[in-house]
């Protein structure tokens, strides 16, 4: 195989070594998210973790110093909704397929990961599409450069190298659900909204029964036969697997809240084009929202009344707000821009910064590990040339767990940031509905 430019870029990036010496990034403006901005301070990291961040940090004598005067440092960006990696999910055989895992389709060599690093993203929830009521299990990853198996911390050039694992070593992820028109299709899919809700309720009732049987089994041999789909739904009922729910129209949002109340699962509402109409209800339900910001309303009926003010309205109502890329709907390299656009429409600057970091981390159950510049957290951060919400600001460096994974000064990395010859070879992901439009109209 002739090595492609992105492939070579991965090899170069893989040369990054585990962090033996402490690194002190000094003289930078710090936006720690936790606490006030520091006009000029130090970020000290060691062995992949943040040791300290602040105006007065004692720098160990053996530390490598990086002068970041004039630069701005903030936590690595957390994207709660992405489709990069050439993913697929459930197939056309049915509307509810909880046994399907998105990571069994992920290509870690997809240039989307390079672009994500160029955009300052350090954690993301990669999901299957919205053409199903339930299209499968999502996966939380970091876009670490793929090693060739030499790094003992990774498992080589496979998706395992990107996983974020829980305390038991299990890859973390949620489950993707959707309502509204994307999942209303020809049989065996539901034909109406009411049928959509009925099918979801039936499946959760089966899961409740399965869970009860598991609990009633005194000995392993009394347990019901393993059922991969029901096992995943039991995790949802137990609250250990978050529901990430695509939903646009105000009444569809209310349907999610109704089902959430009935079954008690934990849920993040995604996209929420019409959340501005039902913000008090969302806030009262204490359900967080992950919002998409796109350059115009429309493109589908449910997004015809999409408003840039959604983040501001939700914030005012007291709801937790994150923003996502939905990459390739918006480009990971423009993630900061999405939040800036929400600021343009009235979202507070502080809220917008949180929406790119800690609020997303909470929605992925990772708030104790990422999302702020605080001692003990993963050393995931970005170095910006200026203010996060300025057009003219560049992501200059992206660091994950104390390793520099993107450097605008490196030509191989820069290719991902700007595009150009050889930057492509992207694998277009499977996604409901967009796929039809894409294939039909623009032949991609």
């Amino acid at each position: 195989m002739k090595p492609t430019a992105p492939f070579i870029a991965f090899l170069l990036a893989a040369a990054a070594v585990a962090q033996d010496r402490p690194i002190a990034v000094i003289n930078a403006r710090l936006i720690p998210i936790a606490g006030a901005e520091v006009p000029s301070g130090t970020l000290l990291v060691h062995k992949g973790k943040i040791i300290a961040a602040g105006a007065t940090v004692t720098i160990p004598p053996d530390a490598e110093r990086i002068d970041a005067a004039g630069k701005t440092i903030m936590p690595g960006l957390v994207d709660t909704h992405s489709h990069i990696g050439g993913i697929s999910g459930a197939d056309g055989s049915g509307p509810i397929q909880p046994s399907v895992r998105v990571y069994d389709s992920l290509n870690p060599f997809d240039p989307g990961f390079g672009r994500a690093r160029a955009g300052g993203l350090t954690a993301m929830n990669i999901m299957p599409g919205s053409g199903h009521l339930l299209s499968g299990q999502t996966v939380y990853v970091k876009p670490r450069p793929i090693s060739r198996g030499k790094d003992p911390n990774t498992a080589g050039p496979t998706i395992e190298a990107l996983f974020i694992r829980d305390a038991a070593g299990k890859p973390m992820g949620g489950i993707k659900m959707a309502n509204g028109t994307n999942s209303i299709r020809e049989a065996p899919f539901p034909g109406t909204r009411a049928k959509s809700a009925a099918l979801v309720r039936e499946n959760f009732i089966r899961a409740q029964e399965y869970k009860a049987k598991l609990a009633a089994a005194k000995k392993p041999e009394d347990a019901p036969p393993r059922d991969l789909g029901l096992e995943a739904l039991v995790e949802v009922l137990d609250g250990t697997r978050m529901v990430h729910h695509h939903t646009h129209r105000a009444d569809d949002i209310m349907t999610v809240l109704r089902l959430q109340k009935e079954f008690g699962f934990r849920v993040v509402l995604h996209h929420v084009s019409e959340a501005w109409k039902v913000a008090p209800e969302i806030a009262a339900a204490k359900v967080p929202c992950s919002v998409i910001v796109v350059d115009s309303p429309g493109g589908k009926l449910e997004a015809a009344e999409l408003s840039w003010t959604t983040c501001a309205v939700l914030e005012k109502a007291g709801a937790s707000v994150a923003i996502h890329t939905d990459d390739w709907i918006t480009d990971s390299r423009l993630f900061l821009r999405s939040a800036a656009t929400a600021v343009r429409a009235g979202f507070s600057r502080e809220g917008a910064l949180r929406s790119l970091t800690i609020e997303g981390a909470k929605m992925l159950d990772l708030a104790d590990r990422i999302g702020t510049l605080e001692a003990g957290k993963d050393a995931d951060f970005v170095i910006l040339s200026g203010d996060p919400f300025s057009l003219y600001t560049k992501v200059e460096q992206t660091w994950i767990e104390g390793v520099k994974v993107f450097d605008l000064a490196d030509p191989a990395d820069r290719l991902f940031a700007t595009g150009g010859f050889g930057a492509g070879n992207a694998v277009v992901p499977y996604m409901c509905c967009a796929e039809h439009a894409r294939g039909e109209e623009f032949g991609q």
Partner: protein
Amino acid sequence: MKHVMLASVAALSLQLALPATAQVAIKAATLHTMSPSGTISDGVVVITNGKIAAVGKSAETPIPAGYTVIEGAVATPGLIDSRGTVGVSGILNQKQDQDQLERSSPIQPELRAIDAFNPADRLVEWVRSFGVTTIHTGHAPGELISGQTCVVKTTGRPIEECTVLAVATVSATLGPWSEKGGSASPGTRAKQISMLREELLKTQDYAKRRERATPANAGDEEKDRPPADRNLRSEAMLRVLNREVPLLITANRAQDIGSALRLAKEFNIHIILDSGAESYLLIDDLRAAGVPVILHASMARAVGDMENASRETAATLTGAGIPVAIQSGYESYVPKSRVVLFEAAQTAAHGMTFDQALAAITTAPATILGIADRVGSIAVGKDGDVAIFDGDPFEYTTHCTGVVIEGRVVSDTVR
């Protein structure tokens, strides 16, 4: 004369709908005229009866009594979207509002954009609220020759009242976007070019037949008589062959751009390169051919034929002296339209100067589309089209605070 009458009807109707008068002055702390007057501090634009009557420094440019005065931090010429489908490919993306592509045949240059444009589509209002006052819209890329394009103002008034150019270009597409499956043609790149050559040869024959039917020495009466074999398709292509209307060729791969240049040379037609993702590979050829580029949206997805798109292409082409305009393009899903203000902004963050980026959505498209006598700059005698902002128009958190078209305030939404 006819045009003036139409314009006054439009003015009357707008007057009913909007409180603003036709006599408007704009005061801006920074006025980017995009004309030889350059950028003026504390500038004033006076618009009388729809046309710009005076431009200059505030101290030296009196505003006549009774004029509505709009103030802002920054003013620019009304922005021009050099290539989109707004008003033709509607906001809802449902069958009933999608008129950008007719699939019945791969070559249909007779399809007029003015018969498809819906000025009431909400996307017209959306782009207008960001200062876009003129749009080059119509048939989308996606068929070998998909139809015509037109240039309209974003007033929202009926096509008869908002048209700047009824026929701006005939739209052609090379590469996979216009390839068909199965046994349908064109199924390959080579077939695309052979079909276009056949079409232009047929048009040459048509021209000869018409010339024979109406010899040059014919009397006026004879000349006015329609030719015996009127044919809308050939009539549309004849205008291309006669260099009256450019062929807008959408091509992204360098090889397709090369084919477009070859075709233009063979038939001596005027072409504009549309999209042009890999145009940076053919700088010398484009410059030698004198072909301007209406470049893809900066934030267009870099997939498929556009996988090698670069955010620095506008700067590269501009640096090489090739005229470049930035377009919103055609979007088949979400977002249903891009906004050229934001697309040009990205070029300002990737190698273009502020003035170069602003030119790519004002003077450059005006020149490329042949409408620079009316729009694209703030100068005496031009249409009174102005966009007003509360800061650097390109900056993410700046707002467009007002939009004026031909002296009428058409938007005061702060967005």
